[in-house]
């Protein structure tokens, strides 16, 4: 007997725009589980959901904003961070979350990424890294591992990729973690922790792109990627971000790498207001 049935009520659905389901992501895509972790993290953190704003850029992961029932903004390619910064400074009561892909945040939005981290703007950034540009059909990007194939690196990628946690930590982020989609429980806790932590929090999530990156790199089924994560992941909380490079054959170091305190940009802005008004009086 099969008990497959139409589900009417589902916990995750309370924060999904159900009128937009099923979503556009391919079978086995890593974005869905990451969104699930995000939704459960919101629920477990007990935050006022009306005060959470979700901003995405462009790309497969850029579509996340459109599927989650929060005040959500689908902006232009790479510009989710400055948009989110304006939104958060406009209303400091908002808990601002940027959910976007590696190409969006690290390639075209790379400048905004380092500067938003440098200012320690109060927001949580969830970066889904699938090692390539999915929406446009599987081109290489700044996170594509060396020698990996893609539709624009048919002879193998010759560029060295970013070590994303290292980049973000060096720029000044106060919370940096990396998990794979398979570390769903840890990812959920990590997001909940980041959501409630002031300052710039950055979580890199590795997720499979079986249709494009996987197909071109001998991991044509989503399960191939998940097995790869399972066999190669090493949890190393507190690891020095400079040692967490992703290579095509080395271990995938996951864990929480940075968790420090630093005044947030909002607090610094208040300092300016105080100084200016003290000078005036």
């Amino acid at each position, binding site marked *: 007997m099969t008990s497959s049935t139409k589900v009417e009520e589902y916990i995750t659905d309370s924060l999904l*725009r159900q*009128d*937009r389901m099923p979503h556009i992501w391919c079978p086995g895509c890593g974005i869905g589980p990451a969104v699930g972790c995000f939704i459960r993290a919101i629920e477990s953190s007990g935050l006022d959901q*009306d*005060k959470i*704003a979700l*901003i995405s850029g462009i790309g497969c992961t850029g579509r996340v*904003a*459109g599927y989650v*029932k*929060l*005040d*959500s*903004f*689908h*902006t*232009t390619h790479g*510009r989710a*961070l*400055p*948009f*989110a*910064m*304006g*939104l*958060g*400074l*406009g*209303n400091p*009561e*908002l808990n601002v979350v940027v959910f976007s892909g590696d190409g969006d945040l690290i390639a075209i939005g790379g*400048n*905004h990424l380092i*500067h938003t981290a440098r200012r320690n703007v109060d927001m949580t950034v969830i970066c889904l890294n699938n090692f390539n540009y999915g929406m446009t059909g599987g081109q290489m990007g700044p996170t594509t591992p060396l020698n990996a194939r893609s539709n624009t690196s048919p002879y193998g990628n010759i560029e060295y990729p970013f070590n994303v946690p290292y980049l973000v930590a060096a720029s000044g982020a106060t919370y940096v973690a990396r998990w794979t989609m398979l570390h769903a429980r840890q990812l959920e806790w990590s997001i909940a922790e980041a959501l409630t932590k002031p300052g710039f929090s950055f979580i890199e999530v590795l997720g499979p792109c079986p249709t494009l990156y996987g197909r071109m790199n001998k991991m044509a089924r989503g399960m191939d990627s998940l097995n790869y994560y399972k066999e190669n992941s090493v949890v190393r909380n507190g690891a020095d971000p400079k040692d967490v490079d992703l290579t095509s054959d080395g271990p995938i170091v996951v864990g929480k790498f940075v968790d420090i305190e630093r005044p947030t940009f909002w607090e610094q*802005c208040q300092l*300016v*207001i105080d*100084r*200016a*008004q003290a000078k*005036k009086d």
Partner: protein
Amino acid sequence: MSENGALCGTYFLNGDEPCAEGAMSAGCRFFAGYPITPATEVAERMSERLPHVGGIYVQMEDEIASMNAILGASWAGMKSMTSTSGPGFSLMMENLGLGVMLETPCVVVNIQRAGPSTGLPTLTAQGDMMQARWGSHGSYEIIALVPSSPQEIFDLTIEAFNLSERYRVPVLVMSDEAVGHMSEKVVIPEIAPENLVTRPRPNDGREGYLPFKANDDLIPPMAIAGEGYRFHVTGLTHDERGYPVMTAEAQDKLVRRLVDKIRVHRNDIIKYEEIGVEDAEVIVCAYGISARIARLAVQQAREESVRVGLLRLITVWPFAEDRIRELAQQVKAFVVPEINYGQIVLEVERCAAGKARTLLVEHMGGSVHNPQTILDAIKKVAK
């Protein structure tokens, strides 16, 4: 200082400074910008004055980020502004389009300098007029105002905020280096709250709120983040729910409304000043700093008994085409002095539609026209 933070009184200011004061008088409390000559003084003034009124000045990493930050702040309910010049204006174009698509009130000030590229950073031009209209991709309408004095840049910055809030569209203040860097008397009055416009807000319940369902005036009420509306907005072509819809029908419905919401209200938006047009045979159509030069040329021509009038465009976009069409029936010719190689003259020519001759008095930038060249042009067409 007035209650809204404006430094009421009479001052001797350069053009960039009253721009910042106008913004604060209009209720602007968020400024994001990037230093660029000759617009830097706007940012400097904002960084000094905004904290006094509890506002936030952010110096962004580039103009792309500046444009996005003011859009974000606007969606948090702030009145927001950025200022720039040519190269930065070019960088803002993509996200100006996002502002149009998301129907986000905000103000972008362009203190124009000569281009293309880095051009003449410290010298004037009016070469971005067509970019203001068509700079972002796709079909859209925008509002652009052109001040011709430091006093007017104050007044028009307030007007720009009012129009952007009223019509939910980014409004451009297209000043230039000459106006931006000239120092003149500026009177900063107390702006009564009833003279400030705030965006239309939804008044029915949160359930069933449609972020892009327009009222009869084609403008949808705007919710802001954090109020429980749980709305979605996207730069993709969308329906009334704000959800992406990839069809020709949805594109037609949305883009038609985005354009029409400005076009149908153009008579409420468009402002111009006319001097001596009643009996004119020749009209000098000018804007910004060029209009001030043209005014002198028109005076001189009148002294030489040439029947010439001045049409000074205050709103350049949407273009005052109804008025130009009317005048084209009456006059022999339009003389259009502008500090570029022919931009607004194309619009004048289009509206004159062969009924009156059109003559461009071009200037590639770096300085303003010599009034004599405009006078010569007037005399040439008046013959």
